[in-house]
């Protein structure tokens, strides 16, 4: 799989935050290729630039220098409204804090990205049902976020991320707020999406167990790539 064309290609990617006198180099010339179908785990100490990298790949932040290509699109060249539309069908974003809309039901939360597509309501309903089926929560579609456990909320968020069938899922510490059991369920869901649905996944995590689900682990430190390690075949089955 790693031999196929990269779906994500970062060239000399640099992000510098300038706050008055202080310059923070969050990313320092990152070169990285990620092939379609890979499951990449990004690890590294706090402040090493993991989230920044993820945000740039997801088209919600812009690099100071360098290029970020996704497919044949250079993301940082898109304007604000092009980016919005591009994100809608290319990137599924999964947050550490789930970020479900509290006043909307699970179904409605999952439907949100579809409302921008112009699909007929019936088709939307089918897609939402399918997405909820995949994460195993079709029986919770009428529940509000506060009526669900953290693990369930995160799985609804995953359903929301995949409902437009984007090729790439981006997750920032998706298990960071979950207990071990819920974390395992979420990781298994992501693994299935990677394996049978062929989603390319880039996931930031502090948790080695979560990272072990990835097909490739990348370590960042002070904005630089320092090391890469492949996980053993069959990795991801928690010990």
């Amino acid at each position, binding site marked *: 799989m790693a031999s196929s064309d990269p779906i994500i290609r970062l060239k000399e990617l640099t992000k510098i935050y300038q706050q008055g006198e202080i310059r923070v180099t969050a990313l320092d010339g990152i070169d990285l290729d990620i092939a379609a179908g890979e499951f990449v785990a990004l690890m590294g100490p706090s402040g090493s630039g993991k989230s920044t990298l993820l*945000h740039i790949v*997801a088209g*919600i*932040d812009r690099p100071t220098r360098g290029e970020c290509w996704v497919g044949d699109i250079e993301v940082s060249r898109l304007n*604000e*409204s092009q980016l*919005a*539309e591009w*994100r*809608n*069908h290319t*990137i599924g*974003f999964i*947050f550490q804090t789930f*970020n479900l*809309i*509290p*006043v*909307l039901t699970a179904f*409605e939360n999952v*439907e*949100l*990205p579809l*409302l*921008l597509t*112009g699909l007929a309501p019936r088709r939307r309903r089918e897609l939402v049902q399918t997405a909820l089926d995949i994460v195993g929560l079709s029986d919770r579609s009428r529940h509000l976020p506060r009526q669900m456990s953290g693990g369930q909320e995160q799985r609804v968020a995953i359903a*929301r991320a995949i409902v437009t069938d984007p090729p790439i899922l981006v997750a920032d510490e998706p298990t960071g707020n979950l207990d071990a059991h819920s974390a395992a369920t979420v990781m298994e869901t992501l693994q299935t999406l990677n394996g049978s649905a062929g989603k390319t996944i880039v996931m930031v995590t502090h948790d080695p167990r979560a990272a072990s689900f990835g097909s490739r682990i990348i370590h960042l430190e002070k904005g630089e790539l320092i090391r890469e390690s492949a996980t053993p075949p069959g990795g991801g089955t928690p010990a």
Partner: protein
Amino acid sequence: MTLPFSYNARNVVVRWRSSAATVLIIALVVAVCLILQAMAQGIVSSTSATGDPANVIIVRKGSTAESSSIVTRTQARRIQFLPQVQRDERGDPISSAEVVVLANLRRRGGAGEANVSLRGISPAGRALRPQVRLAEGRWFVPGKREVVVSRRLAPRFEGLGLNERFKSGAHSLAVVGIFDAVGTAFESEIWLDANEARSLFDREQFSSVIVRVPSPADQQAMKKSLESDKQLRLLALPEPEYYAKLTKSAGPIRFLGYFLAATLSVGAVFAAMNAMYAIVGRRTREVGTLRILGYPRRIIMLGFLMEGGLLALAGGALGCALAAPFNWVTTSTISFDSFSEIVFKFHITPWLIIQALAFSFAIGVAGSFLPALRVSRLPVIAAVKAV
């Protein structure tokens, strides 16, 4: 390409308590404005409900009220025998030559004095106004110093109760009956015999003549024959048309209503803005999430404008509810047509409610503009990282 309506609507429903102060302010503003408009409407409703389309009223050209109009006895007789005037079963024309005078009466409870309209009517005057019904006592007897008083007026002035007496000038008049004239301008009147009124108040002439002319074609013919004679200087109008013009008093009240609406709405817009800044502040991260999902700025903006509008609409609805008890409450004011006391009821019409609701929605939208703009202009990354 819109945010689901339910997103913003449900946020209003779920979180209105945190904006309760704003909702209340808008409610009060709407209630005050609505009450004033209902008052103006009440005057319009009561005068415009007075006229009967089968009646024609003849007054002197240029007079704004019957009390300042003069129709001579000769003119009155001539009008009475015009061919268009309907006749009763005995062959007499259905016509009433009337005298309207203002009497200065003392309010009950020592609250000063006010002018009240006394209407002297001819025998046919009652038949011409079937909407005026005797409720208590009896009708006055011509030739005696007796009057019948509107039920609304009776409790407001000294001596106007049934079997009481009141003084007008040197004369003492007995109240022998109480009449109902629901929702009409007659609710502000005291009725007595026309000739009695002329002698009591020393009037040689009449104020107006009311005749029954059911067919509009006849009304036109009559109007032509009276108004073409320049010597007469008379104006003949179908009653509804005449009373519709007697709504001058509604003008200043309506103006005050609009003036208050304009000034208070500034405050209400700021209140709405305050609430919306708090709301978008709390939901910045949510906006970031929506933006990440692909929602463009303008939809976020529209959503919050809508939400502010709905929040204020809730205030508007509450305001209407607060104003509702005033509906049909009787009040009085001085008429700017006759300068006499007029009694009427607040009248909240569906159209006034629609206006009040639209007004409140507009307040909300206006107040949401800057907060919505601010949160929708925020870079995605700043929005999603907000705490």
